[in-house]
């Protein structure tokens, strides 16, 4: 077993953004939708599909966008970047919105977001990733499990790099904490261990 490197991390919580320990955004916001639009204008732009995503996908997509700034992934074949996420509420927020539309005419645009792993698809489309992906649902962020799972992906050469973490959203409660893990160190280059993740997740 080799010690893989945690080369970047991003934390998005109400209403701030931290990357590698540096506070990039700390602002007042009327709510999650407005906050995500503000982050989009600041860190992304010119990606029309963003506006069609549900809040969970926007949150995860935005966290990946910040995470991968200045961390190009094109040195890897498309199949070699894995995505492994988890959360507590799955896609319940969108499920409820979709259910409301069923009373009248069911919304196709909402229906396609009634699974939490759609966020992995949105990030994959944006960055052209075609590697392994998984989305787990658990009451709390199970850091020992997540660390062991990602470690195994890299140790067995199922992937050369992995973006992993916790993407939770239900109504106005939200939290995205993403980590870029690679075999070789660059950027922050912290040791990828459960203890390190615990420390950063606090």
């Amino acid at each position, binding site marked *: 077993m080799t010690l893989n490197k945690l080369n970047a991390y991003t934390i998005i919580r109400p209403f701030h953004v931290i990357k590698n320990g540096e506070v990039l955004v700390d602002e007042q916001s009327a709510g999650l939708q407005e906050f995500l639009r503000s982050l989009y204008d600041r860190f992304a732009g010119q990606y029309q599909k963003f*506006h069609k995503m549900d809040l969970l996908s926007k949150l995860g997509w935005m966290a990946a966008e910040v995470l991968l700034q200045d961390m190009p992934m094109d040195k890897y074949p498309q199949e070699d970047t894995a995505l492994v996420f988890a959360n507590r509420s799955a896609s319940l927020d969108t499920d409820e919105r979709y259910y409301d539309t069923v009373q009248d*005419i069911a*919304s196709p*645009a909402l229906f396609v977001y009634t699974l939490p792993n759609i966020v992995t698809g949105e990030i994959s489309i944006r960055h052209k990733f075609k590697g392994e992906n998984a989305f787990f649902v658990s009451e709390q962020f199970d850091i020992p499990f997540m660390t062991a799972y990602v470690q195994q992906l890299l140790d067995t050469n199922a992937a050369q790099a992995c973006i992993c973490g916790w993407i939770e959203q239900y109504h106005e409660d939200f939290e995205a904490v993403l980590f870029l893990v690679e075999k070789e160190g660059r950027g922050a280059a912290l040791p990828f261990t459960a203890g390190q993740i615990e420390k950063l997740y606090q």
Partner: protein
Amino acid sequence: MEKLMADLKAQIIEQLNLQEVKPEDIGDDQPLFKDGLGLDSIDALELIVLMQQHYNIRMANPDDGPKIFQSIRTMAEFITANQKA
């Protein structure tokens, strides 16, 4: 027809959440899909819902979709021909 096309542009922007597109950005004969406005298959379903909600038109044959949804003008022509008085 001009009024209907203007209404359609506003309705499509709202229904499809095209937040960075203005009505004047959409040409009357501009393709709605692929290289035109860039709509996808889910958007096509939303257009079917839009026709039903705003114009009370149910599309009997989904195979007609590509022809009807070719542009704002083709949509307006279809609505004009099929809307109940």
